[in-house]
């Protein structure tokens, strides 16, 4: 006789725990999906994590997957597990809006490679999560489909741009989620919502089917409840994809093999530049306490000067905006998406469609990007930014000659209150200071919960690794997570 699990008990499981329970016959993929859909029904009116929920399709797919699991055809650690996908990844037959009005009716004809990899492994897509419009923003408040609220405290933002994905994991409206990270868009909302989020080395996960924001910086990654889930998801979605020229062929994608609780001799550097002005003292204390815990478990921790940190933000906003201004040109009302009515002639149709279809933050970045690429300014801004990008990479190379990991905060503060950030975009941009250089240098970075502030808002610990060194990150993050859990 199979021991059936209670649905609320089920929702607390991590992705791999759920998969184990399904394989052991304690529950089924369909029951898990039903539980998630009920939870969404119950909670999402308040949190607004999802733009689209594909309930019936998801249940039907869960039933198919359950059969395959029972037939022994699906044996991986994510088979039968419901997953939420950020709404900037194409899903065949399922609305993909990028949380923008301009794609209000866009149904892709193909699925993103990362989504296909998950589906091949038996994970079942629940629906599409809310985000900052075209991933531009740090709060999920620039969405055309309403703000997402932080499940830890609904008066606060969940972070962004993958705020819907992070909040859905935190609210148990999914078992794990995919996000995308261009300047911190996975790690920062993970930190604000108290979940694990990882941005892999550039080129590790195919970008095919990810609606591009800053193509040279964008990378898809997992948002999960645990480091173990994070490793399992990354192992599943990492692939060499011939459809993506920037995809890298790598042999070391057995990330779950790094789930080892051991940091003895691990050399960890803390950039002094990451602990200075602007950093909230409670965040600072939590991060340093995490460092001490790792040190107590055998890691060699020291502070060092990373340099160039102050140049990361202008460099990032120049490059990302330049690429975005070009990437978003295809949204013109001609082929798909929103088209303005009553436009006289082609030129006006373009203008009206884009004026009405894009929100203010997207327009701001399109204008900024168009400016830095325009004739006469290209050398002064765009080319200079590319040079600084190379120098930032060099600074990290030097650091990784000495350290296995770099440790620091994810964001200067915990999640701000709703409605406070967009009024001062520069201040919002400055909030990306600790995450952005990771994208500029193409490095992997992970955010792991390391406590909460006095208001109970989660704090995230960031670990940064050298390119292709996800395993060291996973090992360090896992060790920290386990030690923190055990209280030692």
């Amino acid at each position: 006789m199979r021991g059936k699990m209670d649905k609320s008990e089920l929702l607390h499981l991590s992705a791999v725990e759920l998969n184990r329970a399904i394989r052991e016959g304690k529950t089924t993929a369909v029951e898990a999906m039903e539980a998630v859909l009920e939870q969404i029904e119950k909670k999402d009116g308040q949190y607004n994590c999802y733009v689209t929920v594909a309930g019936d399709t998801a249940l039907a797919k869960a039933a198919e997957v359950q059969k395959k699991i029972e037939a022994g055809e699906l044996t991986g650690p994510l088979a039968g597990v419901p997953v939420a996908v950020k709404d900037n990844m194409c899903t065949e037959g399922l609305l993909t809006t990028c949380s923008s009005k301009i794609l209000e009716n866009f149904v892709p004809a193909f699925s993103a490679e990362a989504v296909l990899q998950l589906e091949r492994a038996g994970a079942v897509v629940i629906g599409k999560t809310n985000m900052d419009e075209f991933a531009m923003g740090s709060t999920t408040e620039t969405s055309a489909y309403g703000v997402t609220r932080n499940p830890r405290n609904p008066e606060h933002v969940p972070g962004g741009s993958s705020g819907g994905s992070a909040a859905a994991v935190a609210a148990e409206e999914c078992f794990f989620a995919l996000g995308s990270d261009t300047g911190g868009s996975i790690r920062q909302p993970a930190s604000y919502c108290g979940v694990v989020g990882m941005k892999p080395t550039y080129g590790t996960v195919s970008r095919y089917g990810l609606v591009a924001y800053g193509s040279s910086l964008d990378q898809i990654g997992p948002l999960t409840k645990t480091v173990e889930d994070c490793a399992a998801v990354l192992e599943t979605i990492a692939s060499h994809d011939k459809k993506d020229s920037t995809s890298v062929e790598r042999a070391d994608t057995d990330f779950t093999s790094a789930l080892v609780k051991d940091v003895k001799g691990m050399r960890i550097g803390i950039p002094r530049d990451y602990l200075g002005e602007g950093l909230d003292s409670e965040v600072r204390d939590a991060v340093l306490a995490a460092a001490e815990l790792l040190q107590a478990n055998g890691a060699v921790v020291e502070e060092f000067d990373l340099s160039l940190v102050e140049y990361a933000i202008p460099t990032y906003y120049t490059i990302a905006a330049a690429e975005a201004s070009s990437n978003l040109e295809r949204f013109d009302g001609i082929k798909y998406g929103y088209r303005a009515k009553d436009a006289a002639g082609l030129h006006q149709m373009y203008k009206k469609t884009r004026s009405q279809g894009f929100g203010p933050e997207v327009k701001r970045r399109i204008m900024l990007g168009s400016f830095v690429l325009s004739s006469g300014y290209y050398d002064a801004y765009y080319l200079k930014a590319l040079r600084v990008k190379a120098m930032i990479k060099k600074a990290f190379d030097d650091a990784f000659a000495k350290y296995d990991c770099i440790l620091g905060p994810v964001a200067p503060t915990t999640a701000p209150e709703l409605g406070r950030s967009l009024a001062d975009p520069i201040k919002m941009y400055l909030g990306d200071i600790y995450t952005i250089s990771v994208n500029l240098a193409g490095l992997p970075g992970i955010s792991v919960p390391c406590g909460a502030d006095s208001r109970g808002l989660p704090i995230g610990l960031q670990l940064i690794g050298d390119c292709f060194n996800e395993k060291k990150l996973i090992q360090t993050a896992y060790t920290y997570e386990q030690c923190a859990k055990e209280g030692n």
Partner: protein
Amino acid sequence: MAREYETVIGLEVHVELATQTKIFCGCSTAFGGRPNSHTCPVCTGMPGSLPVLNKKVLEHAVAVGLATNCDITRYCKFDRKNYFYPDNPQNYQISQLYLPVCRNGYVEIETEEGIKKVGIHEIHMEEDAGKLIHDEWEDCSLVDYNRSGVPLIEIVSEPDMRSAQEVIAYLEKLRLIIQYLGASDCKLQEGSMRADVNLSVREVGAKEFGTRTEMKNLNSFRSIARAIEGEKNRQIDLLESGEAVIQETRRWDDAKETSYAMRSKEDAQDYRYFPDPDLVPVSISEEFLEEIRSRQPEFRTEKMKRYREEFDIPDYDIDIITGSKHMADIFEETVALGAQPKKVSNWLMVETLRLLKEKELDPEDIRFSPEHLAKLIALTESKAVNSTVAKEVFEVMFEEDIDPESYVEEKGLKTVNDEGALRRTVEEVIAANPQSVEDYHNGKEKAIGFLVGQTMKAMKGKADPAGVNRLLKELL
């Protein structure tokens, strides 16, 4: 005394490369499919799609660069050229601005004034756009993305040409090189080779260039020559009347033999070029270059020399035949099948050229196969068909590439070699035309021609006229 002017011309030549698939996706490049049937998410600019370079495009571009004495850029990149237009699904074209694949080349051209080098500034790879169809009836525009993403190279010359004659010689030279490489069929009419003419005039002896214009919509050598003449005169007239030439893009209307301004430099768009982050830089290795070099074909000059040595055909024939790679291929393959070079050359020089001219086609349009031409020549050699019948068969072959052997068989066109039947027909003709017989006997040699004609007619052309002549004389 009137001032003397010199014309300065540079060319931008777009060539569509002969690849099976598009430059950044696997879609077919075949011509004439149903609208939007050769498309995929990449070449229709769907969100999330990404380009991947077709290596064949690089091979062709490098081959053309080597054949035109260019330096090959060992680390080249693709850039985005941003502009909004519905034929361009992403609203940017992937091209090369900063690091084009080939630079600093030249070709030698020959005109009445002798041999001259025309410099090649650069050759870059890019994608073609789709096609807009304006439906006047429904008052709407439709777009067909079948051409979107078809690979092109753009060959930018230095401003080294001084006359329409030099421009045509340069284009002919480029076309031959590219056709010989098999990189493109270079058909101007169909748009697989397109030339934009940059032209300015200056007083003879002046050091600075004049203000130039760019002329578009030139789709034959003839219209290029006429446009150059027209634009030169327009600019000289402006200068003579004290006006300035405006830097602008103009469109040539060949029917009206005039051009009009499309856009001036002032409305020139800022294309905001920047390196395409979706494509990785292309590193060209020594091995890759060596492989392309080793694959370079025998070009025209070498081929002409070999023909002179190998085949006993006139220089004039060699010149015409090697003037088209396709024709040279047909010639060589037909000869390889055992046909006599002189006979093959005759068919190409006389009947083929006549039909091409009559139907306004290029040698590249020849559709009959070497096998069939060889068979037709064999049929005439064995006197199975006479020359009149052979020409008729050739015309059908030219149109439909039929097998002449089975065609002759089916249509019953074989020369009748049955001596008895022929003798009977000749006897009947003699009996039916007593006047001509009498004329012949009275010394009117011409009368026999009439009798031969009557016999051929009665035989429905299927007789050997020489044999008929001989038989008539014998019986008379």
